[in-house]
């Protein structure tokens, strides 16, 4: 599968996750978010930025608790929980946010 954006072609897997992670850009994220009916706010970007930083170092998305704690630190303790992340990303912070962040889909019993 693939999609076109501003004249470029982006290959994805069956579920719409980017195959070539280097192709990711903010514009691509906006496009993927729109596909998911997610309106990107500053808080959404905090999640995406943290996911990408973590992935760059560890080649995998972080455990949910690492993510919630990091978001709590950035946006305030009352927002450092799973419930808040699901408010931002109703499709799940692991899967939907990873997709928009251009990370591969997490696999396994998740």
């Amino acid at each position: 599968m693939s999609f076109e954006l501003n004249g470029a072609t982006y290959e994805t897997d069956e579920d719409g996750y980017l195959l070539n992670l280097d192709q990711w850009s903010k514009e691509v994220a906006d496009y993927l978010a729109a596909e998911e009916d997610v309106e990107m706010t500053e808080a959404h970007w905090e999640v995406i930025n943290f996911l990408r930083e973590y992935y760059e170092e560890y080649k995998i998305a972080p455990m949910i608790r690492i993510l919630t704690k990091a978001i709590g630190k950035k946006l305030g303790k009352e927002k450092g929980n799973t419930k808040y992340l699901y408010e931002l990303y109703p499709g799940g912070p692991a899967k939907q946010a990873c997709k928009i962040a251009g990370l591969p889909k997490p696999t396994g019993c998740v």
Partner: protein
Amino acid sequence: MAKKIETDELTGEIVTPNIEPGATAHYKPNLAAQEHNESLGFPGSKIEGWEEKAIGRMGELLSKYRSLKVYMDTCVRCGSCADKCHYFLGTGDPNNMPVARQELMRKVYRRYFTPGGKLLPGLSGAEDMTGKMLDEWFSYFHQCSQCRRCSVYCPFGIDTAEVSMAARDIMNSVGVGQKYCNEVLGKVLDVGNNLGMEKPALANTLEFLEEDVEEESGVAVRYPLDEVGAEVLLIAPSADFFSSPHIEGFTGYGKVFHEAGVSWTVSSYASEFANFGMFVGNFETMRKVAQRIVDAARELKVKRIIVGECGHAWRVGYSFWNTLTGPFDFLDPKHRTPTHICEFTLDLIKRGVIRLDKSANDDLNVTFHDSCNVARGSRMGDKPGGQFDIPRELIRSVCNNFVEMDQDTIREFTYCCGGGGGLLTDELMELRVKGAMPRAQALHEVMERNGVNTMAMICAICKAQFTKVLPSYGIGMDVVASVHQLVSNAIILGGNRGV
């Protein structure tokens, strides 16, 4: 955003649906890519002359596993199983009646392996192995979660799961694999876990947990990695390093070891208890995954293996490990191999080794969901029924409020969560939501009647599946809990008396 999936209204009743032929014929998992198949030693894609090869593989399985032949021959189509499958109850597709699902293989079996089917196929209900048949296999043998509820009601004890496993093995042998399972198996055999989490990430995750628990409790609980000479090798499903409420359960394991004063370690080489080799029905793949655990146990020079909350892997560990990779005579013979974390913790509680404050769980009103492969594929402890009684006794010892769901939906009659057997993948979401209907109904009943707000369980797939699908029924994902999360809430840290 995914479209909303229609669900039955929650009434607390599990009603047998009207039959809708072909209702789910379009449900199919993604096909495995060449690299996924080849990494497991299967052909990369559908091979030339696949029909003949598939029949050849069926013949091999029939001669290797007498059980499969017995299951092919014995069914009298009495229909006892027809309304016992959660996927039939949730979808109404008659091919999801276990008898009809098995019939997809029986028709082919009769055609090639019985005299009547060879000579007079039309009169024998025999059919050729064709592309259309393979399509039906790929669809409907991936609408079976291998939960074996139907087998409990079968007067002959025919095991549908074994039939589904054989069908998937045959499909893999001709290059028609399922992406979700084969990709995950590739990762566990390459990296050591289903997530593909490499050692630095695992180390970072465990360090985070240490800091987090200490911050919260003031007690330095360790979550060790690759420590040679530890007494216990803890093998958890890797979802315990990633998702919620899995991680809350894993946090609890560490607290239990801490209070018991037992040294333990996680292995980066074998950081996965799950074994999808069972789901794809392939003995050699299942053996290779299990072998990593034995190799890690030897390397780390541990005395015993304790395993975390994972349903199908408990079946593999309890029922198959000894055949796959035994004997475990290098471990301390005083302990069962493997020991389930629930039996380990309950024993410590009974002996007064760890101290508890049950009131920490007083805001919870808890029920227990039996996971299919624990309930029907294994035992636990040293008494029959231990797989039912030990988790319940453990919950009751850390919680004041416990309620059972309807008796037809618990213990050996439990319903699958709807995501077991290698079906926990997004493209099957509609099936997963609909297949969760029976459990959602039973849960709804105790939520309404008894004010239950927590459903505890000991399976990583069940936890992931329910947090994802229960919201479709209007039930919040926060009802889903790990059993050791309840332990973690109640355990008094620093009360350490040691074993």
